[in-house]
């Protein structure tokens, strides 16, 4: 502890050089923070997925609707315990830049399909009894300052109403929560019946089906059975587990993630070169001072420690700043694009990993100069001065 001031002074011996090094560390860790938050979003979608839940979409494209008539046929397929449906509404509240999903669904079916979402029973009943009712996730309720009893107009970007209007007014009847931190509750649910009746086109269709397999049934077999039923129909289906469904979103970005990982690797490699160079310059230009320290009685171990501490300090300053800025950016991104990327989150594990990388990179960048300082011959170094 008593060396802290000393190490700190030495770190700032060349202010510009140190600042530039810290800046490069900062950028590397900022990148790391952003990347792991995005990676977390993809992974969490799959992690939070329920293995017994299957999603049925149109075989050609996720955005092609499926007939509502499929509901009963799916429900009677062997191995299916329950089924419900949802659609993509794609509207916004007040500010078109603030995106979040809205899904027209069946109130009771939806909440029994997703037991991880919690809503008080009387709120659910109230919603089911109000055709224009809607329920909102806690995150959004807090973000928009909306409470039960408020009226929430949503501007449609796809679904105009039969009367030509684009504004869908909803009475907020309840707020639901999601205790699982890996997945988001940042969306709005409203009644499919109202949606289907009021929309100008597309009546009698849903976006996708969600079903739960009966205990003991093999989800893969059930999925195949469903797809076989609709083979050669105008709307062939593709049934997959929820995890696979979540990952199919991520797949499109998979290659990008690989490229970014490679870039990140290159950035960290460069980072080691930059900071390693900074440290060896810093040691080289004060051989004499280091020899004096040894003369005064600083042990070999102390010399090693002092140089390593400088290297680690530089990593920690830059790394923690980068992580801090990354955290702020991720918080902002979670608010602004919670819809396209729910669950974007800088996890404690990612921060822990970053911390380990900081310490590791500090040691790697500092070890050669530190050993040089440790092995320094006092007599030679002072004779040279």
């Amino acid at each position, binding site marked *: 502890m008593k060396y802290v001031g*000393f190490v700190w002074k*030495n770190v*700032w*011996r060349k202010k510009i050089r140190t600042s530039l090094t810290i800046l490069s560390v900062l950028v590397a860790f900022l990148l790391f923070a952003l990347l792991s938050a995005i990676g977390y979003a993809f992974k969490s979608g799959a992690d939070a997925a329920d293995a017994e839940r299957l999603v049925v979409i149109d075989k050609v494209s996720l955005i092609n609707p499926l007939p509502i008539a499929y509901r009963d046929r799916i429900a009677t397929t062997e191995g299916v315990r329950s089924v419900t449906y949802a659609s993509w509404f794609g509207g916004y509240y007040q500010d078109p830049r603030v995106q979040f999903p809205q899904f027209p669904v069946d109130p009771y079916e939806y909440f029994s399909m997703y037991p991880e979402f919690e809503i008080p029973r009387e709120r659910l009943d109230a919603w089911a009894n109000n055709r224009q009712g809607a329920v909102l996730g806690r995150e959004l309720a807090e973000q928009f300052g909306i409470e039960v009893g408020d009226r929430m107009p949503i501007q449609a970007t796809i679904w105009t109403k039969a009367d030509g209007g684009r504004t869908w007014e909803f009475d907020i009847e309840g707020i639901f929560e999601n205790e699982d931190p890996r997945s988001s509750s940042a969306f709005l649910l409203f009644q499919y019946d109202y949606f289907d009746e009021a929309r100008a086109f597309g009546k009698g269709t849903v976006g996708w089906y969600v079903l739960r397999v009966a205990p003991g049934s093999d989800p893969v077999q059930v999925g195949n059975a469903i797809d076989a039923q609709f083979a050669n129909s105008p709307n062939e289906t593709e049934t997959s587990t929820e995890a696979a469904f979540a990952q199919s979103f991520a797949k499109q970005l998979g290659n990008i993630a690989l490229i970014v990982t490679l870039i990140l690797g290159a950035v960290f490699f460069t980072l080691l070169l930059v900071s390693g160079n900074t440290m060896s310059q810093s040691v080289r230009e004060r051989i004499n001072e280091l020899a004096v320290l040894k003369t005064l*009685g*600083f042990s070999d171990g102390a010399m090693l420690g002092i140089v390593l501490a400088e290297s680690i300090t530089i990593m920690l300053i830059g790394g923690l700043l980068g992580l801090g800025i990354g955290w702020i950016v991720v918080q902002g991104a979670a608010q602004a694009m919670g819809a396209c990327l729910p669950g974007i989150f800088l996890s404690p594990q990612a921060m822990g990993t970053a911390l380990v990388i900081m310490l590791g990179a500090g040691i790697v960048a500092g070890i050669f100069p530190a050993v040089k300082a440790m092995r320094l011959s006092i007599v030679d170094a*002072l004779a040279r001065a």
Partner: protein
Amino acid sequence: MSEILATLTGVSKSYRKGKETVEVLHNLDLEIPSGDFIAIMGPSGSGKTTLLNLLGGLDKPTSGTVRVGDAEISSMSNNKLSHWRSANIGFIFQFYNLLPVLTAQKNVELPLLLTSLGGKERTNRAQIALDVVGLGERARHYPRELSGGQEQRVAIARAIVSDPALLLCDEPTGDLDRETADEILKLLQILNREHGKTIVMVTHDARAAGYANRSMICDKGSLEHREAT
């Protein structure tokens, strides 16, 4: 005869230069009484610095033994030597060798970092050492804000702060003008006479040597006593 602080017995030191071996010190015997102030003179390259390095445990003799106080330092491990130096030897160099990133106060405090003293006590002792060398007012100045003579005073404060018995000075006035040199030499004299420090000082300057109790000439690997002036 007063107590002996340091003893060199049959000390030789040679360096290898390529294939040749150069013997710098040859079978040297020397006793340094406690409380003495010795000046060592001699031509360049005669081994004066080498002798100081051996006395201060910065280097080891090729043969022979070096004993300081009750420690035989020629056979100590490097780690033990580091520790021993911090408590027993004060070094003063020609070019002061202060750390530029630290204030005078912090420079003087450096050797105390190796002790178990707390922060407050370290600050106190550093302040006292600076007061002794007459630079109490400059505690917060950085080396670049001090004159050469002042820098050397700070270096002396750093050498005495952990209260070592032996001060080793390698041309401490070599870089100073005559007047400033005299001030530094007077300070060393005070440390010797009033604070009981044993001092071994290498110098090229006969006037400087005059401040010591006695002088020795180092030449061709051996030491000769010379009458005090």
